[in-house]
């Protein structure tokens, strides 16, 4: 990069800083290159690094960074606050290997920071588990009482339903079977004792009729009531799980 190129680039990079600062810096570096002479020009510009680096340095100085936190050493300027990757340019102004070192540093710092965060999260997990255990143990008598009660009630309801289902079926079947048997028995008995036989037949038909009534009740119970019951149970569960969305 020639002197003119360097100065043009630097001027462009400093276009937005206050005029006084810019002119002072531009003048200094122009003077400097002038004094260095044509022979040294190239090596001096190479040591400057890049216009970007010089510009970053001037900006940092302007913002007071150099004064507060930075330090000039014989190996150049060092400032711990410039560890952020975005400040790579500004971090170590005067090291010849500008690009290598900061990236190593920043990646190291980033990984160590990440590790710290992970460690913190890991540290908190056992504490949480312990708190949960304590809560569960201290609340267990109450939980057991309430839970047991609810479970008992539920089991009772289920048992009653099951009983009703079985009983209704059994009664219907018994009526039908008994009615049919009595009717058959009455029909056969009519041959020997017509009156007894007719009585038995009449009883049988009566019981058969009761059985048919029960059959109808069964039809209603199994066909209508049970599906309705299941549907409403599922509805209630849904409402518990998804809030009020299923209410229609």
């Amino acid at each position: 990069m020639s002197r003119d190129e360097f100065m043009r680039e630097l001027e462009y990079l400093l276009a937005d800083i206050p005029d006084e600062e810019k002119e002072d810096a531009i003048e200094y570096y122009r003077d400097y290159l002038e004094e260095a002479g044509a022979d040294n020009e190239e090596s001096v510009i190479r040591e400057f690094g890049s216009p970007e680096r010089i510009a970053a340095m001037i900006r940092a100085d302007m913002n007071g960074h150099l004064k507060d936190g930075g330090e000039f050493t014989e190996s150049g300027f060092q400032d711990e606050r410039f560890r952020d990757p975005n400040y790579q340019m500004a971090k170590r102004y005067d090291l010849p290997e500008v690009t290598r070192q900061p990236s190593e540093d920043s990646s190291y710092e980033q990984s160590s920071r990440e590790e710290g965060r992970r460690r913190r999260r890991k540290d908190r997990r056992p504490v949480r588990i312990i708190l949960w255990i304590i809560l569960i143990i201290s609340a267990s008598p109450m939980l057991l009482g309430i839970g047991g009660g609810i479970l008992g009630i539920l089991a009772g309801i289920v048992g009653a339903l099951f009983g009703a289902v079985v009983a209704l079926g059994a009664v219907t079947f018994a009526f039908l079977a008994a009615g049919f048997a009595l009717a058959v028995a009455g029909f056969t008995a009519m041959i020997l004792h017509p009156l007894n036989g007719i009585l038995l037949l009449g009883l049988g038909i009566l019981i058969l009729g009761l059985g048919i009534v029960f059959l109808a009740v069964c039809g209603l119970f199994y066909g209508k009531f049970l599906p309705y019951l299941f549907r409403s149970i599922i509805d209630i569960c849904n409402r518990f799980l998804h809030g009020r969305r299923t209410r229609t």
Partner: protein
Amino acid sequence: MVFNTGAALLDAIVLAVVTKDQEGTYGYKITQDVRNVIEISESTLYPVLRRLQKEECLEVYDLAYDGRNRRYYRITEKGRIQLNLYKSEWAGYSQKISRIFEEAHI
């Protein structure tokens, strides 16, 4: 060089270099003079000079040279006081360090 030169020491060195010439000296020459003593890069000194100037330890003036303006740096009264402070601090510090090295059995 194995030892770091801190900000204050670099300030002191620059101030001392500037006082060598009664009528002041200019950026390139200051840099070369400092480079004779410690290893600094060509670009290190601008912020230092600028800061010392803002702190009124140095003052600048332009002088025509070779058909153009050359910016000269000259130490101010405040700069002298500062340099004196640095000198006495350094004397004490370097003496103590030297003594402990001399007392060391190698």
